[in-house]
């Protein structure tokens, strides 16, 4: 038994998968550096050095066998932070190698492939929710700023949407759980990784708000209240569609 340890990046994971085939490890498991805690005394440890060429070769092969959208599904599995993510991705790759002419991710009767479909569904739902529930606050420097705590690591998956939509304004979305964010200042759009001092600034933004901000927040809250039909009250459906864990950052639910 061999445990392959990789640096936690997607390229690292792809490199590890390449090396399983390269060195023909049987009975291999892949584990990220961060999650590798208990040493398995029966396993030999193999440290993976991330190599873009190896990772690219795996991705190219997968794209050939499975198609582009399947590869982005595997990326979603990776971003799900699911404890089984390495196993799921490896099983998809192995299954695909055995049936290169079919998109094996469509075998919904195969338990791992169905599990992948489920994880992808959860991640897509979170992506859609972030597109919907991000609430920007206008700051004094004209940046529109939003805090989020998504269930999965979805910022890389929502970046494109916000970039396309808000081209004529400066904006920032910060993931409080994972301590990084995405931004666009109209000229540049990129990820950012603030130091601790800046992070604290992001947590408390009350003093940085633009003078108009609270007015529009109030208008939105009143609109939200008035567009409801009390005779049709259905709290169960309300909470199902708008789970409570998101309320903290929803202007209309403050």
């Amino acid at each position, binding site marked *: 038994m061999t445990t392959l340890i990789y640096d936690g990046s997607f390229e690292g994971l792809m490199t590890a998968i390449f090396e399983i085939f390269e060195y023909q490890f049987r009975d291999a498991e892949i584990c990220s550096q961060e999650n590798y805690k208990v040493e398995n005394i029966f396993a030999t440890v193999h440290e993976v050095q991330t190599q873009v060429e190896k990772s690219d070769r795996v991705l190219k092969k997968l794209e050939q066998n499975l198609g582009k959208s399947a590869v982005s599904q595997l990326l979603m599995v990776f971003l799900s932070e699911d404890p089984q993510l390495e196993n799921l991705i490896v099983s998809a790759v192995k299954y695909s190698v055995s049936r290169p002419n079919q998109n094996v991710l469509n075998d919904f009767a195969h338990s791992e492939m*169905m599990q992948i479909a489920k994880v992808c569904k959860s991640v897509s739902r979170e992506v859609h929710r972030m597109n919907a529930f991000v609430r920007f606050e206008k700051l004094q420097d004209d940046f529109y700023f939003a805090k989020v705590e998504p269930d999965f690591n979805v910022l890389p998956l929502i970046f494109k949407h916000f970039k396309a939509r808000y081209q004529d304004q400066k904006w920032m979305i910060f993931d409080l759980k994972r301590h990084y964010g995405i931004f666009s200042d109209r000229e540049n759009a990129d990820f950012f990784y603030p130091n601790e001092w800046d992070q604290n600034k992001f947590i408390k933004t009350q003093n940085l708000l633009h003078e108009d901000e609270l007015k529009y927040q109030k208008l939105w809250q009143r609109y939200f209240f008035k567009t*409801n039909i009390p005779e049709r009250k259905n709290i169960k*459906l309300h909470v199902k569609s708008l789970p409570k864990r998101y309320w903290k950052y929803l202007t209309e639910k403050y």
Partner: protein
Amino acid sequence: MNIDRIQEKLEILADAAKYDVSCSSSGGNRKNKNGGLGNSHASGICHSYTEDGRCVSLLKILLTNHCIYDCAYCVSRKSNEIKRAAFTVEEVVDLTINFYRRNFIEGLFLSSGIFTDSDTTMERLVRVAKNLRTEHQFNGYIHLKSIPGASDEIMREAGLYADRLSVNLEIPTEKGLKLLAPEKSHSEMLKPMTLVKNELVLYKEERKIFKKVPKFAPAGQSTQMIVGATDETDFKIIKVADHFYQNYNMKRVYYSGYVPMLEDARLPSIHSQVPMVRENRLYQADWLMRFYGFKADEILDRSNPFLDLEMDPKLAWSLRHLEQFPVNINTASKEMLLRIPGVGTKSVRKILMARKFQKLNLDHLKKMGVALNRAKFFVEFESHNVFTHLIDHQNFRKIILDSTKSKFTSPFSEQLTLF
């Protein structure tokens, strides 16, 4: 900006617009190519949900609730003594832009009371859309109400700026409409719908020849019918809906359970319940017509004119057509898979894909997310299914109802036990 006055107007005009069910922002295809603000998301985005469980996707308001008409079913009717207000074009534009920039909404849904003649009202709505599109490079979603009686010229201009145009039929029959809104007629409402349909067809034709034709209402048109204000049968309602889907290129028909809010001898009493279950069943029937290949006449007929409130219309259809079951999940056509109770369009897709790899059974269906409590009675596969014989049981209806408690069944309405 006088914030208090704006807030008061917003409250009045949002309150007056809320009975319009449509809040959809889907079907648009506008891109943000001009470096401006916003774009359309193909499937639409619900940015929030109110306590009644409805989606909030658009800023849905009236331009004004001043109205010269006196339709019995409408809160804004002339004879109703309520506060009246009117937004200026600039105020609506400012609210839309500022809500959009904060990611509160997908765009604007603007309707209006008829404050003078139809043309003046429609022209004002168009001016808001035009201002957003041209002055602010706004590419978000815009849904405008078509005002019956507005000239073709203004309607065509509306289609250039709006993603969706709609006229609410409100009352499904001419007879009902004459009773509740004697000043209105269906023929007058159908005119703008016909115009939009024809323009959409024309646009499609022109697109084949010229690449760059200005878009015309890319998200199509929709309409709404109030359910339970007059005495139409469900059969009549879905036949009308079907007619619109077939002949008017309609994207959506909405059903709005009548909310009693006005005392009027022609209307249900103010204490009557909103017919929410009936409304839900109508939507299910609508889905069967649009996505499951059912014809209106299959769902209901003259001798059977109301939807079963105890079960969904697909299950009700199956009980009337037991001879078509069980369906073999490994060999049946897509059309027949779609008719199995408890199997949705997504499950059908999964079944079709997965059976290329191996033979399927109940276990597989369960993992795929099929509602087995209904489906298990209606399917067969290579091994034995212990549930199919129950189809012939004389109490089959009761058996299946017991295994599928409706989400609308209140836990308190159960018969009391001894203690």
